[in-house]
């Protein structure tokens, strides 16, 4: 054998250039940068076509997209706004009930009940979480963990909103293509919209709050107001998931506040790459089908999610997306030491 070697990583030249503010000109450079994004967009857009012969897996893919919204909302809140929200199910459930009420009770068509349900639900969530915004770290996590539980217990105990039975008779989408492309379209818009948002001034301020809330206050900006905005944005994403899902399965019940809905998005985010938002989507698209393969094993599914989650957290892994990004942007070679 030759002498000791080590693997050396070199950044591709174009990566270095594109990191600074200088504009890129050559077509080749543009293709290089756009390729991963185009791949994702095209993949999502073509998915319903590929999966048409596999109707069940098509539905699973849709569930994965729904979950991606929750993962996006968790990722945004936790890794950009610094609010560890363990109650994703709360956002989801509120969105679900809001859309269901609008559609079944007020008779609004699907095209109205989903957007209205999303916005009204997000308002409700924001108002509900508002009092907790002065809480930090673990306290916020604890209270948000309680919220979905409190909601489901309240609905069960009072029998309001259909009580334990929930209610049915909610409109479906009519066409399969509308159902699928509406979801995929909104998912793409939400993902890239959020990625854009965090680089806008308002998004930067929210990120700054996570780094140092006191310094933000010293800059004359109300931290509570920033967090309120962040919660609202995250709620929009979470509530949309619920609102959409209600129409997908045409029924709603207290299980819209189930624990799974809080834990799965977290796993998706941690595995996909925290803080990248795209990673959240990637994680959901991987985890949900994986869980589906485990469906026959009942509760082993949740245990498997949790186990993966633990391992990834303990190894302090960067997540899949940053890993792939690094591989994409770097050349590797062996060098003599």
């Amino acid at each position, binding site marked *: 054998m030759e002498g000791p070697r080590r693997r050396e990583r070199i950044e591709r030249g174009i990566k270095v250039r594109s990191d600074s503010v200088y504009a890129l000109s050559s077509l080749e450079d543009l293709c290089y940068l756009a390729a991963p994004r185009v791949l994702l967009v095209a993949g999502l857009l073509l998915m319903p076509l590929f999966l048409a012969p596999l109707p069940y897996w098509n539905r699973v893919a849709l569930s994965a997209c729904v979950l991606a919204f929750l993962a996006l909302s968790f990722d945004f809140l936790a890794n950009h706004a610094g609010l560890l929200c363990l109650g994703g199910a709360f956002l989801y459930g509120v969105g679900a009930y809001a859309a269901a009420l609008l559609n079944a009770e007020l008779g609004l068509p699907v095209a109205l009940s989903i957007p209205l349900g999303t916005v009204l639900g997000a308002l409700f969530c924001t108002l509900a979480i508002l009092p907790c915004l002065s809480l930090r770290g673990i306290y916020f996590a604890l209270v948000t963990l309680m919220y979905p539980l409190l909601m489901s217990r309240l609905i069960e105990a009072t029998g309001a909103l259909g009580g334990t039975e929930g209610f049915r008779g909610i409109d479906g989408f009519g066409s399969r293509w509308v159902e699928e492309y509406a979801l995929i379209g909104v998912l793409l818009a939400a993902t890239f919209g959020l990625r854009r948002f965090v680089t806008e001034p308002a998004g930067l301020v929210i990120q700054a709050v996570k780094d140092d809330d006191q310094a933000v206050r010293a*800059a*004359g900006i109300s931290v509570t107001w920033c967090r309120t905005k962040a919660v609202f944005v995250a709620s929009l994403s979470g509530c949309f998931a619920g609102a959409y899902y209600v129409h997908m399965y045409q029924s709603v019940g207290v299980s819209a506040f189930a624990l799974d809905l809080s834990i799965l998005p977290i796993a998706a985010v941690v595995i996909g790459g925290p803080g990248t938002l795209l990673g959240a989507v990637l994680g959901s698209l991987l985890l949900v089908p994986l869980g589906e393969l485990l469906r026959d094993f009942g509760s082993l599914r949740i245990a498997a999610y949790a186990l993966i989650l633990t391992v990834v957290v303990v190894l302090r892994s960067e997540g899949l997306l940053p890993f792939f990004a690094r591989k994409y942007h770097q050349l590797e070679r062996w060098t003599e030491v």
Partner: protein
Amino acid sequence: MDRGVSDEPLLVVSGLSRRFGGVVALDGVDLSVRAGEVLGIIGPNGSGKSTLVNCISGFVRPTGGSVRFRGRAITHLAPHRVAALGLTRTFQTLRPFHRLPAYQNLVVPLSSPRVRRLEGGRGRGHRGERDAQAIDILEELGFERDSRVPYQVASQLPTGHLKRLELARCIALRPQVILCDEIFSGLSPSEIASLVPLLGKLTEQGIALVMIEHRLRALFQVAGRVMALDRGRKIVEGGPRAVVEHPAVREAYLGLEEVPS
């Protein structure tokens, strides 16, 4: 005041007190600063200097006394409201937004309601325009425009740059009073030397500075007036020389190496 120069003091603090449990951190401190003036505050460790800054800027609620800024009582205002009125501060420990590049650190104050208002409420403003503004301010503070420094993530910057970034963040807010909490500490003499004229430039613009310092030699280059704190009380106030030679100050500082004689 935005309208013009006046002899009225910008900031008047009277009888400010703060107790933490049984410990008296501040005990009836008075001070006042006019536009363009630099007030130095010295005192041994634990004399209540930082608490004073915290109380004035609203981060800690005083237990007694009052703070008036431009004739308006701001004693119990939340910190961001105080800052929005034009009174801001630096932090003793470095607190950059460490995940953001240096210039984006300034985007935070630049997109605050105060700056938007001062710019005539031109709405959200252009992203590029705001970035350009940030880079302009950084250049004034010695971040070379064409180097990579302004684009580097804050967590990778050296202490000297972070100190200046801290100040830049205050300046971006276009304040009338800046409370500086030990901005010279941890800097090399050459770095301090480059910072001093900058502070002079700020006072020329009519900004009042309240500087808490241990580096007395540097402080006396900029401060026209100095007050000394000990155990939460003001012991003396006046010209730098007079204060340093005051026996009570010398006693309080005994053992501290940097007392110029």
